[in-house]
């Protein structure tokens, strides 16, 4: 690792940074004013009423979001068109006094929670191998930080860890830690790592369960941190990849086409005051441990006490401590995956929304830097904006239907300023997509996107997708925001990442209430002023067809079909990176054999007790309690006795976990089951033993056949 490798562009002076922000701020203000002034004039021309005033108030934050988005994308386009911004962390000269001696120790941590074990460990294998190929692997240690509560995942993870270490000779480099108490979810998991091992490392690369980073990228991040000692966090820009369903493919197409514009534009004015997304980032551990532990929310908070979305807060605390947070948007070699379907996205958004609403407290906390407050506000508005949009539409409807002499087009007439304003809003919304397209065409990279014609058609199709999806998301997000303040409980659940389009019934249950609400809304309009319906028809269309649309988007078959026909092609598909290709070469999961319907709920427990190797691995990874109290010993022994007599059905999930945490009980059960004559075993264990023997015999036959 050598900071001298870095290019020599001087860090911008604080005055220059301020100048950039001023220019950018003025640009946003002009774009905003070009919408707000006609809106105000229009309202004034029609005469101010309470309703129009409310519409005008709602228009301000909604249009500000649109203007800001366009400003970022257009600045990004101009920068990328001329080869990129000179002031990006990857191009800056090393700071004076940057260490050049001993290479730093870097921990790569991956917190996991009931994730697909095969996928997770294959990602780690790919990253570990890629890192070794760089020759810099000795400075990195990998940590799998498991919070898995399901014994099936837990036991599979242990076996997968051992296999990974064995196959890569990674013992002493790849570590596995299972947390007994999942305090404070992911941020608590990371904090627990920091308390145990943080002092041994200078930097920590945080991954998500679906993150993939190449070895060169990991090495480069270490170099950049070494070169810039005042940098606390470097966030990379992971590329959405490996999409299988139609939804994933459209999402990865859209984000890869326009994402670079937004990233470059954000970096233009944020520079060292960027934000952190919670993964695919490198963190300076010492200040992180000293300053970034997240405090709880006040005791009487309606949003709970424990913060669910930790990333933006950690970035804010890092900057509050005087460190910079950079967005290395141009570094290549980082990937992540998109949820496979709309329902999975909504489940994830519900958690994110709740977490972002909690940021309201930090928005007004003392000593937070202005730009950090902006990031927090932006995160809140990402969801609260939907509620405002819904209110805007509802008030527009009331205006159109109820206001004496109200026009058919809502609270304001579309003659005069109105039509121009609508065109302006639509232009700001959709132009970034055309700028993304233009950039690809200008840089003559269309071939990697499936060719010019297919690319253009894909852009148009993606716009149709956006138009249909936006109101669906609006209805859900608005509900999530209101739900968060009404005390709806949100837990940090595992994310389903595999392709599964779901059922008609499931989709109908999810989308049905919104379809009904939209039908009532339409009925109301049809009853009072049918002509107004045309203005909202595009808003209503998405929710009305949400059931078939969701099933279509979640379909892996349609995903494959569009790929075969050259639709929504992204460069990663046409010029696949080695690491992504290796992800597709996953070894067959052995545990698949054990998942017969009867034993599926408890196959982890079954293996931990019956299989001599899994049993030994599991016991060897548990801490042996020499000082367990008589009462606890007696409780665990009682559980062991019950599971022997009644099978796993005799224990609840918590009791099963207690049992699995006790090495003595698991060793005892292994011996007890194998030494007991079949007739003396509970029926479940008799069947389990028979099934296990069949499975192991099948496995051996397979081995012999392959051998």
């Amino acid at each position, binding site marked *: 690792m050598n900071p001298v490798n870095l290019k020599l562009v001087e860090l911008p002076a604080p005055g220059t940074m301020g100048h950039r922000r001023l220019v950018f701020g003025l640009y946003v203000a002009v774009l905003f004013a070009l919408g707000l002034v006609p809106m105000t004039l229009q309202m004034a021309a029609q005469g101010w009423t309470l*309703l129009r005033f409310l519409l005008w108030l709602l228009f301000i934050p909604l249009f500000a979001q649109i203007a800001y988005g366009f400003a970022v994308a257009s600045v990004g386009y101009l920068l990328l068109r001329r080869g990129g911004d000179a002031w990006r962390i990857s191009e800056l000269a090393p700071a004076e006094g940057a260490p050049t001696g001993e290479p730093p120790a870097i921990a790569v941590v991956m917190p996991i929670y009931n994730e697909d074990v095969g996928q997770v460990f294959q990602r780690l294998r790919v990253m570990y191998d890629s890192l070794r190929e760089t020759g810099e692997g000795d400075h990195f240690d990998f940590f799998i930080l498991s919070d898995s509560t399901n014994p099936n995942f837990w036991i599979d993870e242990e076996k997968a860890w051992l296999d990974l270490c064995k196959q890569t000779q990674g013992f002493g480099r790849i*570590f596995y830690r299972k947390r007994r108490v999942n305090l404070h979810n992911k941020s608590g998991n990371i904090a627990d790592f920091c308390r145990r091992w943080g002092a041994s490392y200078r930097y920590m690369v945080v991954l998500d369960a679906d993150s993939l980073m190449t070895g060169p990228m990991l090495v480069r991040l270490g170099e950049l941190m070494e070169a810039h000692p005042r940098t606390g966090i470097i966030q990379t820009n992971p590329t959405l990849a490996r999409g299988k369903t139609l939804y994933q493919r459209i999402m990865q197409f859209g984000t890869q086409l326009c994402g670079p514009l937004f990233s470059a534009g954000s970096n233009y004015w944020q520079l060292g005051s960027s934000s952190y997304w919670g993964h695919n980032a490198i963190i300076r551990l010492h200040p992180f*441990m000293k300053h970034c532990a997240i405090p709880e929310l006040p005791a009487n908070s309606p949003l709970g006490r424990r913060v669910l979305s930790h990333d933006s807060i950690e970035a804010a605390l890092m900057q509050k401590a005087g460190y910079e947070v950079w967005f290395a948007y141009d570094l290549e070699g980082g990937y992540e995956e998109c949820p496979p379907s709309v329902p999975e996205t909504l489940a994830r958004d519900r958690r994110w929304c709740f977490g972002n609403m909690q940021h309201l407290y930090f928005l*007004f906390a003392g000593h937070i830097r202005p730009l950090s407050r902006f990031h927090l506000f932006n995160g809140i508005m990402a969801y609260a904006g939907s509620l405002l949009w819904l209110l805007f539409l509802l008030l527009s409807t009331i205006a159109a239907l109820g206001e004496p002499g109200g026009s058919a087009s809502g609270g304001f007439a579309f003659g005069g300023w109105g039509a121009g304003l609508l065109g302006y809003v639509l232009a700001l919304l959709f132009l970034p997509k055309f700028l993304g397209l233009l950039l690809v065409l200008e840089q003559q990279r269309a071939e990697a996107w499936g060719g010019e014609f297919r690319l253009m058609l894909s852009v148009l199709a993606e716009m149709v997708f956006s138009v249909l999806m936006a109101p669906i998301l609006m209805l859900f997000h608005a509900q999530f925001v209101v739900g968060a*303040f009404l005390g709806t409980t949100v837990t940090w659940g595992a994310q389903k990442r595999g392709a599964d389009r779901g059922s008609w019934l499931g989709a109908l249950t999810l989308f049905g209430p919104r379809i009904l609400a939209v039908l009532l809304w339409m009925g109301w309009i049809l009853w009072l002023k049918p002509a107004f319906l045309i203005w909202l028809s595009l808003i209503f269309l998405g929710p009305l067809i949400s059931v078939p649309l969701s099933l279509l988007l979640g379909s892996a078959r349609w995903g494959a079909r569009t790929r075969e026909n050259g639709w929504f092609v992204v460069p990663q598909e046409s010029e696949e990176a080695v690491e992504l290709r290796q992800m597709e070469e996953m070894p067959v999961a052995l545990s698949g054999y054990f998942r017969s319907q009867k034993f599926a709920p408890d196959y982890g427990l079954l293996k931990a007790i019956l299989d001599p190797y899994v049993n030994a691995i599991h016991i060897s990874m548990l801490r042996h309690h020499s000082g367990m109290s008589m009462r606890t010993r007696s409780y665990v022994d009682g559980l062991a006795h019950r599971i022997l007599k009644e099978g796993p059905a005799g224990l609840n999930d918590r009791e099963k976990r207690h049992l699995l945490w006790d090495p003595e009980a698991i*060793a005892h059960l292994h011996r007890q089951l194998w030494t*007991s*004559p079949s007739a*003396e075993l509970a029926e479940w264990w008799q069947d389990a033993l028979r099934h296990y023997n069949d499975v192991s015999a099948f496995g051996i036959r397979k081995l*012999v056949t392959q051998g």
Partner: protein
Amino acid sequence: MNTFFPHTGTEEEWNAAYYRLEDYLRALRVVNKVRQSQIILPVLQAAAARHAQDPTLNPTALAVQELFEVLDSWFARAALASETLATTGRVAFLLTDSAEKWPEYFLAEEIPAEYARELRECETLAGPDLEMSSMVPRPLDIPAPDVSLPAAWKGGRLMLVSVAAVCFGFFKR
């Protein structure tokens, strides 16, 4: 020829014991049938001797206990020093690919020096040495919420009143 004619227990009981030992060895990935028989026969003989002393004991239980003891003593002979010999031994056996690489030496009298070294050198370190440090949240000047507002939201009253006020204000005109 090495024979097995137990004086106590029924043929059915000893067959059951044989099958259980076979199952366990297969679970250990010892797939060679001849090798399985070579291991099972002396284990059964030792179990039969114990059964003759106390015929109330079950042959299957005795046989598997005997196999566990054989495994423990073999792992100890392979110089695996651990309080949890059975566990360490099985993990070492898995990590060295003993079932595939050293099938003929598993539970054999003679343990090649290289094999013994491989078994001893197996190390499964789940985590490095702890270096405990603290990470404590610093007090942040977080404003306390206005409890009356969320409480009103929670009851849904404020929303109802707001909607009603807006509608009233509009329709009254």
